[in-house]
């Protein structure tokens, strides 16, 4: 049996849900709010970093979304989500590595500087600091502290914007060779990247790929896939859309300036 601990808006959970939908694997779901329940001792036993997703398969606990993607493909090989040749597989792994080492933090920085910031600003400073300091990953807590305090003026934002731009240029380069990121077939690279592009769109930053028609075409192609519809769009309730509606101020002018200066 497969069990997934996740959250609808979590980018890391979204990529895993897409892969599970591609494999048509039924899964028992445990939804977390991520407003403190991720640091409950019972959950931290499964996932010591207190993050989602966690996959439990016949009692085996697998954490880290990129590793879960590889696991799902190895445990359920059909239809394949990894290319056949070692060189193409390497390309897929490079996307996962780029995301794990750079993009994920960059995405957190952009989201907490904009959409997720108002929730914290309604609390007292002590309250929100206490909430973010519960996370065992100290560097991520530091990023959150800075962007909750300073929004898009935080010192961390410029690098986060550059990381997103870098991923978009990787995508444009790879999409010259085929309709998907690793060639002719949809793979784990697409599963992993989709949530980050979606997030930019939700943050009204879709203009970041306006000069890359191949990326825009890819996005149209993948967002219409049944797995993406089932794993993301069909799952978002009004409460999941809410943080992204009426973003104020509009992040694009500032991000555009940062991109010009970079």
């Amino acid at each position, binding site marked *: 049996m497969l069990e997934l601990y996740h959250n609808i808006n979590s980018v890391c959970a979204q990529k895993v849900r897409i892969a599970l939908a591609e494999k048509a694997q039924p899964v028992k779901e445990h939804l977390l709010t991520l407003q403190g329940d991720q640091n409950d001792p019972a959950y931290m036993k499964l996932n010591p970093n207190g993050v989602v997703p966690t996959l439990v398969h016949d009692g085996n606990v697998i954490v880290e979304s*990129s590793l879960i993607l590889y696991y799902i493909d190895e*445990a359920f090989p059909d239809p394949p989500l990894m290319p056949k040749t070692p060189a193409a597989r390497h390309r897929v792994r490079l996307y996962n*590595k780029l995301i794990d*080492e750079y993009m994920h933090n960059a995405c957190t920085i952009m989201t907490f500087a904009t959409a997720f910031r108002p929730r914290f600003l309604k609390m007292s400073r002590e309250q929100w600091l206490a909430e973010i300091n519960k996370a065992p990953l100290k560097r991520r807590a530091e990023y959150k502290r800075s962007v909750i305090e300073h929004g898009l003026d935080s010192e961390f934002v410029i690098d986060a914007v550059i990381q997103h731009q870098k991923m978009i240029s990787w995508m444009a380069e790879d999409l010259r060779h085929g309709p998907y990121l690793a060639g002719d077939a949809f793979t784990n690279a697409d599963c992993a990247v989709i949530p980050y592009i979606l997030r930019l769109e939700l943050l009204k930053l879709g203009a970041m790929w306006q000069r890359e028609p191949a990326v825009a075409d890819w996005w149209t192609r993948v967002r219409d896939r049944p797995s993406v519809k089932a794993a993301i769009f069909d799952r978002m309730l009004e409460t999941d859309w809410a943080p992204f509606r009426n973003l104020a101020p509009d992040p694009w002018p500032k991000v555009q300036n940062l991109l010009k200066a970079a």
Partner: protein
Amino acid sequence: MQEVRPMLKLFTAHNSICTQKVFLTLIEKGLPWESEYIDLFKNEQYRPEYLKLNPKGVVPTLIHEGHAIVESTLICEYLDQSFPQPSLVPASAFERAQMRRWSKHIDEGVFEATREISFSAMFRDKMKAMTQEQRNGRYRNIGDPGRRARMISTYELGCGSPFVEQGIFAFEKIFGEMEECLSDGRSWLLGENFSLADINVIPFAARLDYLTLLDVWIKDRPLVAAWWQKAKARPSFSEAIAEFLKEDQIRAMAASGSRIKSEIAAKHAEILKTRQSALGAVA
């Protein structure tokens, strides 16, 4: 039948930890390769021809069948897939996830940790001898702003840099997890078979050992210490790591590590105390 020798070319640098991972993998698999040396202190890693192969400007890079394969962890997995025997990757999906957790731990914590600690011990003095202009040139060459900030901080503050402290913590975490993992009597990190999980950790333990700092973390961890003795006794260890180092390099690492050892040990003790109280608060 004529033996088909794979054409593998590896861009490498002297005493590069990430390259040592790839050397270990090549040697354990009995694969011949050809090395091309990049002089990091002459900034050869930032030459445009090399950046085309390796956009981050780091070593190693593997060239195989016209493909440039980068990132040492991924190079090792690539080699195992391209040359499956003898296998260094476990058969089951669950064990593979464990293997990749160890390499992720290295890539996203221990790698930086080693760089900050090695840098404080070895390269800081070398950079002190440069002019400010030369140092600024070096900083500018680092494309990744996070990495640049870490280098500047470690240059200016040495062991007092918060990044060194994070590094000490990262090692504390991985060696603690190793001790726990080995407590069921297994020989290697994934069981009875030596795997890429071990290969990922070995060069980092070796660097600390050469700096004479390893016992700060493992003196009270008998299982990690026994694992380390076994790892060092493998023929691949001498071939991939020890034999590449000259006597004077080994002496220089020991001397520079000894100079910061008491500071590192004191910081380590402080971290253990604060972490203990943090754990107490949760319970």
